Every structure is written in C-alpha cells, then in structure tokens.
C-alpha cells in the first residue's frame, strides 16, 4: 500500500504545476516516484547536477518541472544550482527527502545532510520544511504551494521532507 505521505507529496507535485519530473533515486524517494505514476512524464536522471540542468531548463521553454532527490545530493548539485538555476532566475521545485535528521541510521550521511538547510540558506535558496508534526494533507499543500512560490519568485525552491517517523519509516 502506498504511504499516505508519499502519495501526498506526489499529489502536491502534480498540483504544483509540474509538467515533467526528474528524479535521482533514493530509497526514501522511491514511494513518491511510484505514487507519481506517469512514466511518460517522470524519469530518472543520473545525478543531481544533471537534474538542475535538464529540469531547470524547462522554464526557458515556458514550462515548469520538479526534481525529486535526497538531501545529500545537494553536494552534487550546488554548482549547477547556483550558476544556472539561481543566476538565470529559473523557477524549479525541488523536493528532497531528508537523510540528516532524527532516526537516520547511516552515520556518515549526517556529515553532509546536517548542514544542507544552512548551506541552502547561505546561498539564498528558499527552503520549506516538512516533518512528522504535520499530516499528509499539509505535506500536499506545502509541496503544491512551494511550486507556486518558485514561479512567483523566479527562483528554485526546496522542500525538505523528513519521511522518517511518518509512515515512511520503513523507507
């Protein structure tokens, strides 16, 4: 059965106005990809910086897209994100699964992921957080509104979603 949180993120992504979705695989992201469906519009990309270029270019054609990834992928993405998406004022919705928070079992991943919110803030990239303190309906709304925020501000916007300790604990 699809996790209500994963389904909420997927519904929020479509409600955000995303026309194409690129993802970089992660065990936490997989239920969201399953819930998104539409393999004609949802496809894998090899690396996060590539996702910034491919999906980030869509607004140049009048379209809008979303990237689904996990937070340690921002290490790969930062140069592309800043020199392309941020510098050219291109709206993009990025939904990232948090690996650096409470409950994360993989000790070394904290070394990077713990600092992702501060790194993004330092770069001026707007971040909205989701965790167990709100339910699936709020997750869906925040993801959808983050897409609108990206278009309104002509910038990439990140949603950091902590699936751990929701029904995504097994992810």
């Amino acid at each position, binding site marked *: 059965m699809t996790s209500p949180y994963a389904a909420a993120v997927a519904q929020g992504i479509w409600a955000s106005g995303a026309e194409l979705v690129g993802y970089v695989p992660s065990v936490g992201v997989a239920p969201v990809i399953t819930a998104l469906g539409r393999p004609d519009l949802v496809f894998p990309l090899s*690396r996060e910086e590539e996702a910034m270029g491919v999906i980030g*270019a869509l607004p140049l054609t009048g379209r809008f897209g979303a990237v689904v990834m996990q937070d340690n992928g921002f290490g790969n993405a930062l140069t592309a994100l800043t020199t392309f998406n941020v510098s050219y004022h291109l709206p993009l919705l990025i939904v990232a699964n948090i690996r650096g928070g409470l409950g994360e079992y993989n000790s070394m991943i904290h070394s990077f992921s713990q600092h992702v919110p501060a790194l993004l803030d330092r770069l001026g990239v707007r971040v909205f957080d989701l965790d167990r303190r709100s339910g699936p309906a709020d997750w869906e709304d925040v993801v959808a509104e983050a897409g609108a925020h990206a278009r309104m501000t002509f910038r990439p916007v990140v949603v950091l979603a902590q699936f751990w300790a929701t029904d995504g604990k097994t992810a």
Partner: protein
Amino acid sequence: MRRIDALQVLVEGTADLPVVVTCAATSRELAAIADRPNHLYLLDSMGLAGSVATGVALGLAGSAIPRVVAIEGDGSLFMNPNVLATGGYLRPDKLLLVLLDNAVYGSTGDLPTYSARIDLGALAAAAGWSVRQAADPRTLRAEFAKALEPGGPAFLHVRIEPGNASGVPKLLEDPVVIGRRFRDWLASR
C-alpha cells in the same frame, strides 16, 4: 580548423534554431561572431550545456522548432559525460549536440583532456546517439545539414585545432538578460 572557424559555420546554420553554448572561450567567440537572441550562453556552468539543451529539447517536444543545438567542448563533456547516457536513455527527438573537440581545456591553459585516448563520438554511439564527424569547414557544413534531419539525439563530432581567437572581449552580460532574451525568442517562434 580552429574553434572560431567552426563557430562561423555553425552561426550560418543556426539562425532559426535555439543554441545552448558552453562557457568561456566558446561563448565569447560565438558572441563575437554573432550575438543573437537564439543563443543561450552558459557563463559558468561547465559541463551543463548538454543537460540544459536536453531540458530545452524536452520542453519543446511538440513545438514547430525542429532541433535544439548544444555547442559543447571536450573538456566540458568529460566533466559531465552523463549527458551521453541520459540522451541515449531519454532520446529527446530534437537534441543535436555539436562537440568542438580540440583535445585540450582551451579556456584553462590548454591542459590536455582525455580526448587523445578516448573517443567521445564512440561513447555517444554506444549510448545510442547517431554520430557524424567533421574536421574541416566544408565537411562541417555538410554534416551539420544532415544532422538537422529529425529523429532522435544526434551527435556531431568536430575535430578542431587548439587555440582561442585573439582580441575577443569577455562576455559580461547579466545571465538573467541572456535567459530572458532566449525565452522571448523561443516564445515568438
């Protein structure tokens, strides 16, 4: 054939096509020949021209624009060779990547790339791109015209000599202006 000679041929063939061009000397030399609104100069995103062109090609699927042209260098493509695998997997119908291969990092002191030992055209072919070659202006003109024919990702491997054109000014435009100009040009097609 030097880079600027190859770019001269590409300028003649791309007046009505979107062109995504890699950073530094290649962008500068292209802008020095012709600074047109259909050019998207990537001022500092080394390795990203192929990815951005892939996104533009996906975004323009179903439009009347027949091809999206990426102009990339060998050093830059070696920095992000994933472009070849992703293009082969997604198969954007309109994508044409023109590789200007001088076997050196031409914007960073002419240090050698892997190109003397690794054939990027063969990598592209292995990933499923249709590959053509050129090493002089006449062949480039002819092969570029053939590569414009529709159907799947195309890769034009152009061997050039090292060396940057002299007296070419830096490209100091605001990237937001470059991007907006490109977007408006696309919207008007």
